[in-house]
């Protein structure tokens, strides 16, 4: 296990090498979309702000643009602006070392010069959708809403009494099995209240037809992710790695429910499929296939690539693509209610550890790196120790990195590099009778 110590001044490359054309396309689109969004909001259009678990399809159905907290946090981290924003927390009487993943937006809201934020800063949202079950995240959302002077819809956490453990087996077609009937009914009611709230505070109207269209796009997009995941899993060496696709995958994921989201997912797949057909791989010297558990290391995507040349270690799995592949699709054929279908997404239940095991086996994983935050709640509640024990028992060696995925100030590149290198040299490569290339 490696733990963050006080980090030295940064003297390493944090940006991953872009090796796919689609990365450039989505990066460009992302910035363009954001600039258009700013113009729309400045012209009086509403903007919704919320967490990753907000069912965006509802917002698509109401033509309300949405900015996701986690996306914005990743952008701030990637632009190395995290430390600057967390300092605003400190100067306003808050701690600057707590809840980094959830507090970035509030920290931005405290910036006296918000226009200096990424791409000219975040436009002021019109409504806040608080879907995170964590009570602290709810407080931060409340503070954000107060600071912005906007209304907030807070989604209750409905206990899930379903005993289903393998949610990926039923989530697309038998999603009614993901939650008990009473819980589902309550979540439907809550989503109906959210629609009322949005209609009241944005002036936009909900359309069932548009919701169906959005859910169809969303399903199409995530089916492409499923195909992409399967393609990566079944190809040796893997055609692409986590940093090759994570940005494009997530940029499209934050636009799920739109035509662009579905088309982009297909474009990612097409580019990777062409690589497979041509026998190409971004890590042709792949010796071992690695799984990254936990949040993405947004401020240092280059880290994933740092072990390719010497060790042939290819990080081919992270949760971001796999979530889309296994957990997002909700088919609503046969006259089933799309609101009910969406109400079963992010409803708790399932066994994350079993899912990781299934994915590790599918991808032929040789080693697992598990990012767990020391000071933030991230991953606690997952029963990480049980997950690690199960992975180890199943033959997957696990290295825990205790680090913050959002605040680069605390990252110690040297320590973490050394930890992963040692892990590869002593636990991962020897299991296959392999050695570093040099």
């Amino acid at each position, binding site marked *: 296990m490696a733990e963050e110590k006080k980090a030295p001044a940064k003297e390493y490359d944090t940006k991953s090498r872009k090796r796919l054309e689609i990365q450039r396309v989505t990066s460009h689109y992302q910035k363009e979309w954001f600039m258009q969004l700013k113009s729309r909001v400045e012209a009086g259009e509403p903007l919704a702000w919320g967490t990753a678990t907000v069912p965006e399809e509802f917002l698509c159905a109401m033509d309300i643009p949405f900015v996701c907290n986690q996306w914005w946090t990743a952008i701030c981290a990637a632009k190395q602006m995290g430390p600057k924003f967390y300092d605003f927390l400190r100067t306003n009487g808050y701690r600057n070392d707590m809840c980094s993943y959830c507090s970035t937006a509030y920290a931005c809201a405290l910036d006296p010069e918000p226009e200096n934020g990424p791409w000219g800063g975040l436009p002021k949202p019109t409504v806040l959708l608080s879907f995170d079950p964590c009570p602290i995240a709810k*407080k931060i959302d409340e503070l954000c809403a107060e600071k912005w002077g906007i209304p907030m819809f807070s989604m209750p956490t409905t206990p899930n009494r379903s005993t289903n453990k393998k949610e990926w087996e039923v989530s697309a077609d038998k999603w009614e099995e993901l939650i008990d009937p009473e819980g589902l009914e*309550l979540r439907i009611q809550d989503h109906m209240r959210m629609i009322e709230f949005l209609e009241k505070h944005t002036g936009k109207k909900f359309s069932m037809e548009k919701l169906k269209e959005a859910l169809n796009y969303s399903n199409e997009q995530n089916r492409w992710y499923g195909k992409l995941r399967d393609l990566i899993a079944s190809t040796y060496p893997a055609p692409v790695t986590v940093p090759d696709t994570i940005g494009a995958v997530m940029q499209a994921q934050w636009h799920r429910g739109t035509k662009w989201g579905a088309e982009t997912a297909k474009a990612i797949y097409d580019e990777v499929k062409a690589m497979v057909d041509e026998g190409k791989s971004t890590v042709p010297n792949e010796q071992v296939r690695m799984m990254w558990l936990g949040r993405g290391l947004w401020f240092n995507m280059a880290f994933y690539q740092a072990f390719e040349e010497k060790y042939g270690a290819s990080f081919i799995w992270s949760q971001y693509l796999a979530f889309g592949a296994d957990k997002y699709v909700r088919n609503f054929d046969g006259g089933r209610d799309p609101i009910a279908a969406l109400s079963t997404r992010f409803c708790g239940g399932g066994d994350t550890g079993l899912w990781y095991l299934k994915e590790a086996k599918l991808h032929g994983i040789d080693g697992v790196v598990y990012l767990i935050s020391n*000071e933030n709640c991230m991953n606690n509640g997952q029963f990480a120790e049980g997950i690690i024990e199960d992975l180890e028992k199943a033959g997957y060696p696990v290295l825990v990195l205790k680090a913050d995925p959002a605040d680069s100030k605390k990252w110690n590149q040297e320590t973490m590099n050394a930890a992963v290198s040692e892990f590869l040299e002593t636990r991962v490569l020897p299991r296959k009778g392999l050695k570093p290339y040099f």
Partner: protein
Amino acid sequence: MERDIALNSPAYVALRNAYVNREHTLQALKLKGKKIIWVFGATAPEEIIAAAGMIPVRAWGCAAPWTQSDKYLEASFGPVWRALFDAVLNGERRGIMDGLVFSSSAAMISKLGLYIGKIAGREPEKDLPPVYSLPYDCFHEEEVMFPRNCNETKRFAKKMEEWAGQPITEKNLAAAVKLYNGYRAALREVIKYRTAPDCRLTGCEALTVIGATLLMDKEIATMLLKDLAKELKTWPVVDAAPVFYSGSQQENHLVYGLIEELGGNVVGEDHDWGDRVADLDIKAEGDLYEAITYRYTHMMPNAEKSRVDVRVELVPRLIEGCGAKGWVIYMNYNDESFIWDYPSIKKALPEDFPIYVAAKQRVPFKDEEKLREELGSFIGGIRR
């Protein structure tokens, strides 16, 4: 700090014995042949457990080292939660632990319940008691959440009937409500003597009294509280700087003792082992399940499970009500929900109201010398 006057009071001493000798207290209860149900946090209706013929007691942590926590919990679980986790998993108290109820008064408590439930399933050889989690929601609109919370109360009652092997009758439930209302009234009669300026009970003594009653048979606790209340008016006034305490729950005298040693005295607090216990009775009429739900979802809001605006309204009122001249916020590492309330609450207090914030604390103290110096200076400032 417990004074001689307290240590010479039969009622106080009886309460103190229960507080100090906690395992022994529970072993004595166990001899009555009833099941002992450990309640984690403050928002699970003990009345229902009692009406089912079992004895609810408040879960408390064990002393370090916390080997089970080191094995299973992420670093972000602070010391209070580690101590509670080990208290269940180290097996030493298994003989006085027949069931575990995890309330939702803190997110970490809910997570402990989840983890212990998972371990019970994975490692049956550990022979852990049955686990139940009660997810009351106090964050959302009353009209939406109250019916849901009432359903949770009824579901909880069914589970307690199952554990007890007997039904909860209306008569038993009414009797339990009456007993607990009487207990809370008696507790309020005692703790009113802790408020400044006419403060006759120190913070440590108050912690002892409140904590003891969480572990005792409520009939006996009520009797002792009534006896103590009669004596308190004759106890000498505590000459110390009165402060209000917010922060990590205090199951022992560690922090309050230090405050008293430095010339201060906690005259009110908002954590689960303090004044919160005595807050709000249950209406003993109409639908009792609704009345019980109302109490446990409307009792004094703690920092962890209530909105910032609620705390902004509450804390200054509590501070004024107990006559505190300063506010101590003491947080163990990663137990810091308070920090998100504090700057807003501060704005609602007079500009020069003295506030001391101790964050990232450990058990035992991380840097006692520094803490002493800072806290001493803060209390000295109030006294001046």
